[in-house]
């Protein structure tokens, strides 16, 4: 922050020697203090950083990308390729900010970039002397060998030398918003043409949105038109017309959708509390009017990049809008009549004009008059050979029509190579601009649906007379085409010599137009130059099309509020509060946050905790929230018929109050999902899916019904969120439940056997569903209650089970027990396995059609050589198995051709007291008892294991039927 004393001193030190006494739409009563490269300066409200720097006589603003050439301010808009600075500091530091659009605020801090160690003395300017190396294609030629040098030596070196400013490297402290808007007419650009279009639309009663990238409406008319304020006042009177200032429409998308970014608080020191820094607008417009104006082209001659060389339109703008003299003595070099305005502006500002230089042999009387009125000597049929000076222009050398060289002193060179309609947005949906000889520029070709173009963006210029000049013959020194990427006229010639004449090749070989400015001042000059040296027309040479974004967009704006935890919703289970109180450690499971395990005081080792939880379930009883499994309520006369078609196994004989395991395939024959479905009524079923696939399976069922079998009378609704479901597992689970299930319900083994289900009440009248399902292999139940009661149910169960030492268990213990029981889960249901691979071929019914039946019958899918589910037990029982290890014949070399499968899931089995694993192995089921090598190159594991049946624990299933 600036201190009070700094304010005073700065005001004294900063007399703004280049500020004009009057004029401009700045507020001379409102000083704004700012810091550039550590020094404090003064500007006014209404300035940009660029205009304030110019007012203070600062002309050297940065160094160029490749050659570290001194650079100043070329433009007065968002097309600026030179004056790029790091704005702000700390976490808000933003590199490559254009000084020409950065609105000045009190306390603004900016630092020049690409210079080492300082702006005025840059050691890397030596790159300029090495330019034969850095010429077009230098990446491809110079740094080729040895290849290993690229990553470690060449790239870091080039990055340091080139660099594009430094990113903050800290989390973005600001917030961003997204907003959607609808309108009849979207007007893009708030200059004369845009204001006229918006007024016309508003007068006819249309809902209008007018977006302008500037912070003041009016475009080039700002400070130049007396009636502008009236028209803006009329605009503001329409209630259905929304004006978005500081808003850049950066992209056009299908269906009349436009992307825009509003810089809500970039003109403030920092956003107000809860104020977004930027807002991303998605605008859906029935029609749009593109009124983005035109962008001026530089001229290509020697040292045309030196600070003090400025586009002629920018010169007018600094004078008329900002009340700043960009120099004290000017030379004007142009090939078109539009420059008359700049000559008039220089005259208004009493800036001496030493010469007007024009390559045309004949110029109009009006233009000649405008030049002589400033006292300029007029040179026609002439050109500028080079600028003179080092860190700023001190003079020029002119090549007059009659030969020789005229040397003139000046500190400002206003140049104009003609104007390009800013038609970028017209080509976002593949529109192809067309060349217009009359104005020597591309004009919009085919337009996005609903778009019209008006004003200069359509090529409608006030003074269209121009004669293209793509390069000055006889120029000396580097003549830049692309200022931001340091591409010179010689680079374009080199590209031609080496055969890269197509526009797309030219662009990629030289990097012309590939900087963050997307070549807005460079592309047409590059194209014109290539056309000239290949002696082709512009049409034959081609055109470039544009992609979004029109100007760079911060990723933060596109992300909006969706970052960090808000990137996707986090779903909490109904028992989350209870689990938190029980000291649970949580894990992300899909979009859910689930309890992974429940450490007791003093327990630090997860394996120890999980082992305790498993042991408690196996010996007594435990509870685990299983709400996250997808639950789909299925009803209708044809529900059973429908289940027959989506599951591989049979469903027509499932009795009321019974559940069944079901397997689903994709239509290509691979396993998609599994789960149980319970018949709750004659025509009423409840399906469960895996946690991960809940949404996908619901979508699949709707697809099957709506698209494949619309004749079936069946409907679905997801009830995952409606029911809390808790597993109660272990030999004492029935006794635990007995004390909370209302006494009139019989839950004995006879009434509620394994795979049975009952609708009943608990805790004196609460509606519940009790399923006798077991994932753990023990006598077990899943109890479902309306979701709001889930947390209370967990507490009730803990009380009911207290006499048995009831233990909460998490997803880890759940996983250990399913591996002990050999149940395939996510690691095995990986989208690449078949029913045959998982030992479930018997679930493929031969009696009916089902999704995936035909393709599952492909011989390769049942080839016994396919890796098939097996269990693994380490030969040395102390060895630890690792998931992901490869399975190889013992003694075989560890190479891909000997690979026979891999380990999918492992767990330490508290029941067997050693590690167990599941894996997929070629010919697996016929190799039980064989010893195999388990090779884990990632973690240096190499051990032997015995191939066993995948069910390690209670293979007869006695316990779960108890």
């Amino acid at each position, binding site marked *: 922050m600036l201190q009070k004393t700094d304010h005073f001193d700065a005001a004294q030190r900063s007399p703004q020697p280049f500020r004009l006494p009057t004029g401009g739409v700045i507020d001379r009563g409102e000083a704004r203090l700012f810091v550039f490269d550590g020094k404090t300066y003064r500007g006014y409200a209404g300035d940009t950083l660029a205009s304030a720097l110019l007012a203070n006589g600062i002309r050297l603003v940065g160094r160029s990308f490749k050659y570290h050439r001194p650079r100043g301010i070329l433009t007065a808009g968002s097309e600026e390729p030179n004056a790029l600075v790091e704005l702000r500091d700390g976490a808000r530091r933003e590199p490559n900010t254009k000084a020409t659009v950065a609105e000045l605020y009190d306390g603004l801090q900016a630092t020049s970039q690409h210079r080492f160690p300082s702006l005025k003395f840059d050691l890397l300017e030596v790159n300029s002397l090495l330019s034969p190396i850095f010429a077009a294609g230098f990446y491809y030629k110079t740094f080729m060998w040895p290849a290993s040098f690229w990553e470690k030596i060449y790239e870091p070196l080039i990055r340091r030398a080139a660099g594009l400013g430094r990113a903050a490297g800290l989390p973005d402290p600001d917030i961003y918003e997204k907003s959607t808007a609808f309108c009849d007419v979207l007007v893009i650009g708030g200059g004369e043409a845009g204001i006229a279009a918006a007024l016309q639309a508003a007068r006819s009663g249309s809902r209008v949105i007018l977006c302008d990238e500037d912070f003041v409406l009016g475009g080039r008319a700002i400070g130049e038109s007396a009636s502008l304020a009236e028209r803006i006042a009329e605009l503001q009177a329409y209630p259905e017309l929304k004006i978005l200032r500081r808003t850049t429409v950066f992209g056009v*998308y*299908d*269906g*009349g*959708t436009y992307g825009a970014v509003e810089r809500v608080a970039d003109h403030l020191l920092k956003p107000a509390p809860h104020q977004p820094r930027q807002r991303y607008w*998605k605008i*859906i417009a029935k029609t749009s009017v593109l009124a983005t104006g035109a962008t001026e082209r530089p001229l290509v001659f020697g040292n045309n990049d030196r600070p003090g060389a400025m586009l002629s339109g920018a010169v007018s703008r600094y004078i008329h809008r900002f009340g700043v003299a960009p120099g004290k003595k000017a030379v004007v070099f142009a090939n078109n009549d539009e420059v008359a305005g700049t000559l008039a502006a220089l005259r208004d500002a009493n800036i001496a004009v030493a010469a007007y230089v024009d390559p045309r042999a004949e110029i109009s009387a009006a233009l000649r008059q405008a030049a002589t009125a400033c006292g300029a000597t007029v040179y026609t049929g002439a050109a500028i050979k080079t600028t003179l000076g080092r860190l700023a222009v001190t003079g020029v050398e002119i090549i007059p029509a009659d030969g020789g060289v005229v040397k003139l002193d000046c500190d400002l060179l206003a140049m104009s190579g003609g104007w390009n309609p800013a038609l970028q947005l017209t080509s976002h*949906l*593949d529109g192809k601009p067309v060349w217009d000889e009359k104005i020597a520029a591309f004009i919009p070709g085919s337009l996005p*649906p609903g778009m019209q173009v008006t004003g200069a963006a359509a090529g409608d210029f006030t003074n269209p007379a121009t004669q293209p000049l793509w390069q000055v013959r006889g120029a000396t020194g580097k003549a830049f085409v692309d200022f931001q990427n340091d591409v010179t006229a010689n680079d374009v010639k080199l590209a031609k010599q080496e055969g890269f004449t197509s526009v797309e090749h030219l662009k990629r070989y030289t990097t012309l137009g590939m900087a963050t400015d997307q070549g807005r001042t460079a592309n047409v000059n590059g194209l014109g130059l290539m056309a000239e040296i290949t002696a082709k027309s512009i049409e034959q040479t081609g055109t470039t099309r544009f992609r979004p974004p029109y100007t760079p967009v911060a990723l933060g704006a596109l992300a909006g509020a969706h970052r960090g935890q808000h990137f996707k919703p986090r779903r909490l289970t109904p028992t989350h509060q209870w689990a938190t109180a029980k000291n649970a450690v949580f894990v992300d499971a899909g979009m859910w946050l689930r309890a992974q395990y429940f450490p007791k005081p003093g327990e630090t080792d997860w394996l120890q905790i999980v082992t305790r939880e498993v042991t408690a379930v196996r010996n007594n009883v435990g509870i685990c929230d299983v709400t996250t499994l997808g639950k789909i309520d299925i009803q209708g006369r044809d529900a059973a018929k429908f289940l027959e078609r989506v599951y591989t196994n049979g469903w027509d004989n499932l009795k009321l109050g019974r559940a069944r395991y079901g397997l689903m395939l994709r*239509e*290509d*024959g691979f396993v998609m999902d599994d789960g149980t479905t319970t018949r709750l009524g004659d025509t009423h079923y409840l399906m469960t899916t895996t946690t991960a696939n809940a*949404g996908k399976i*619901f*979508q699949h069922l*709707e*697809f099957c019904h*709506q*698209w*494949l079998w*619309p*004749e079936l009378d069946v409907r679905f609704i997801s009830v995952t969120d409606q029911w809390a479901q808790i597993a109660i597992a272990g030999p004492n689970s029935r006794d635990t439940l007995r004390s909370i299930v209302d006494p009139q319900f019989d839950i004995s083994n006879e009434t509620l056997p394994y795979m049975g289900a009952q609708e009943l009440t608990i805790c004196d009248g609460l509606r519940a569903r009790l399923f006798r399902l077991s994932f753990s292999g023990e006598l077990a139940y899943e109890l479902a209650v309306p979701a709001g009661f889930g947390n209370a149910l967990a507490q009730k169960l803990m009380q009911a089970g207290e006499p048995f030492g009831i233990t909460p268990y998490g997803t880890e213990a759940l996983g250990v027990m399913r591996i002990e029981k050999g149940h395939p889960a996510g690691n095995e249901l990986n989208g690449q396995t078949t029913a045959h691979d998982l030992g479930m071929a018997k679930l493929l019914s031969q009696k*009916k*059609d*089902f999704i*995936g*039946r*035909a*393709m599952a*019958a*492909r011989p390769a899918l049942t080839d016994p050589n396919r890796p098939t589910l097996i269990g693994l037990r380490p030969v040395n029982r102390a060895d630890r198995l690792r998931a992901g290890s490869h399975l190889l014949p013992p003694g075989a070399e560890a190479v891909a051709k000997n690979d026979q499968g891999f380990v999918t899931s492992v767990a330490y089995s508290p029941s067997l007291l050693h590690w167990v694993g599941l894996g997929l192995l070629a010919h697996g089921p016929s190799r039980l008892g064989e010893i195999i090598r388990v090779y884990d190159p990632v973690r240096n594991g190499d051990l032997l294991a015995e191939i066993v049946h995948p069910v390690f624990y209670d293979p007869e299933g006695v316990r779960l039927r108890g």
Partner: protein
Amino acid sequence: MRINCPYCGERGSEEFAYHGDATVTRPRDGGAGPNAAWIDYVYLRENPSGLHRELWYHASGCQSWLVVTRDLRTHAIARVELARSVALARMEPS
């Protein structure tokens, strides 16, 4: 892209999930085996330069499956129908 859902009106394409070709029909041979008709249905897809019929699912809306007729060159949508209506019409004996 904007899709005019018959139930929900015109909505942004980010609300929809794309499925694919709506011109292929599931063989009605009871899943007889991996014959040519099944291979065509599961794997073979046209990529016409012009109008195409595609299945979209209004995942963040009414859960309807839709048949969208769309020009693959311009993304212009010519027609949106309920997949269920199209499927029922297809089943009627012609």
